[in-house]
C-alpha cells in the first residue's frame, strides 16, 4: 500500500509504483493493515528479467521481454505480490548500471478513471461546509 503523507511524497514511493506498473504484478499484503512504504525505505534494484524468472506464472513470463529489462524490486516468491516492506525484499542482485527501453507487451491496457475535484464535489450537498 502506498502512502502519500503530509510530508508530500518521497522518491521511494515513486519508484515502487513505477516498478510495479512495469512488471504488472504485485498487490498489497493480505490481511492486517495495508503495507506501508515509509519514506526511509531501503531497497535493492533488481532487473525485471529476474523478476519474471521469479514469477512462476507463464503469463507473466510471456509479458516481459527479458532482453530489455528495466528495474524493479520483487519478492523471491514473485507472482501476484507487491514488493513488501523492504525487510522482506529478495536477495540482492547487485546494482544495474544501465536501463533499456521498455518492450511493449502483447496485451491491451484498459483504464477507467474517475475524478471529482474538491471544488466540484459540491461540499454543500454533502454537509461539509
Amino acid at each position, binding site marked *: *500500500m*502506498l*502512502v*502519500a*503523507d503530509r510530508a*508530500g511524497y518521497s*522518491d*521511494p*514511493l*515513486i*519508484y*515502487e*509504483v*513505477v*516498478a*510495479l*506498473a*512495469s512488471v504488472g*504484478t504485485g*498487490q*498489497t*499484503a*493480505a*490481511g492486517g*493493515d*495495508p503495507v*506501508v512504504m515509509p519514506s*526511509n*525505505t*531501503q*531497497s535493492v*534494484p533488481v532487473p525485471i528479467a529476474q523478476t519474471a524468472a521469479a514469477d512462476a506464472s507463464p503469463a507473466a513470463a510471456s509479458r516481459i521481454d527479458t532482453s530489455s529489462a*528495466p*528495474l524493479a*524490486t520483487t519478492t523471491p516468491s514473485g507472482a501476484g505480490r507487491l514488493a513488501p516492506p523492504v525487510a522482506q525484499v529478495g536477495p540482492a542482485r547487485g546494482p544495474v*548500471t*544501465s*536501463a533499456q*527501453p*521498455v518492450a*511493449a*507487451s*502483447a*496485451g*491491451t*491496457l*484498459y*483504464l*477507467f*478513471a*474517475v*475524478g*471529482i*475535484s*474538491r471544488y*466540484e464535489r459540491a461540499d454543500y*450537498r*454533502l*454537509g*461539509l461546509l
Partner: protein
Amino acid sequence: MKDAGDFAEVMKAQEGRQYARVVTRVLTDAQATRQSVLAGLQWLSVSVGPQDVGFLFLAGHGVSVHAGQYYFLTYESRHEQVQQTALAERDIRLALRRIRGRALFFVDTCFAGNVIGDPKSAGRELARMANELSSADSGVVVFASSSGRQESVENDAWGNGAFTRALIDGLRESGSSEPKGADYFQGP
C-alpha cells in the same frame, strides 16, 4: 478532475511501449454521476481480456456511512442519500473481480467527515476493502493514497493530490533510457 485526466494521459503514453494498446475512459466532475460510473465499471469488466490489464482509478471523496461499508461519492451524491447516490464498495469490488486479466485499482480519496460519519471510519473501511481485494481470491493489485489512519492530501501547488502526483511523476520517468531516479529504488 485533473488527477484522472493526468493519470489517463500518462498511461496513454505507454501505448506501444509497456502495452500494445491503451484504451482509456475518463469521467470528471459533472460527468461522474453514479450511473455513468457504473456504466464505466461495466465497460472495464467486459473489455479486459485474459491477456489484458484493467486499471480502475478513483480520485475524489470517500465515506463510510454504515459501519463496514465504503462509498465513493459521485458528483450527484447527497449526504442524506449516500447509499442511493454514491458508488458502493460492492460495485467496485464486483467490477474488479469480473476482470479476466490482471486488475489494478488506484484510489486517491480523502474522507468526508462531519455529517457523513467518521473520517477515520472511512479510512478503515477503505483499508479493509483494499485488503479484501488483494486477497488470493480476488488478486487485485491495490494502490491507495492512504491507509486506515492516514489522510490523503492535495495541494494546489502540485496540481494533483500527493498520491497521484507521485504516481504520474514516476510513470513519466519510467520510459527513460537513462538509469535515473524512476528506474531505481533508493534509500533516504
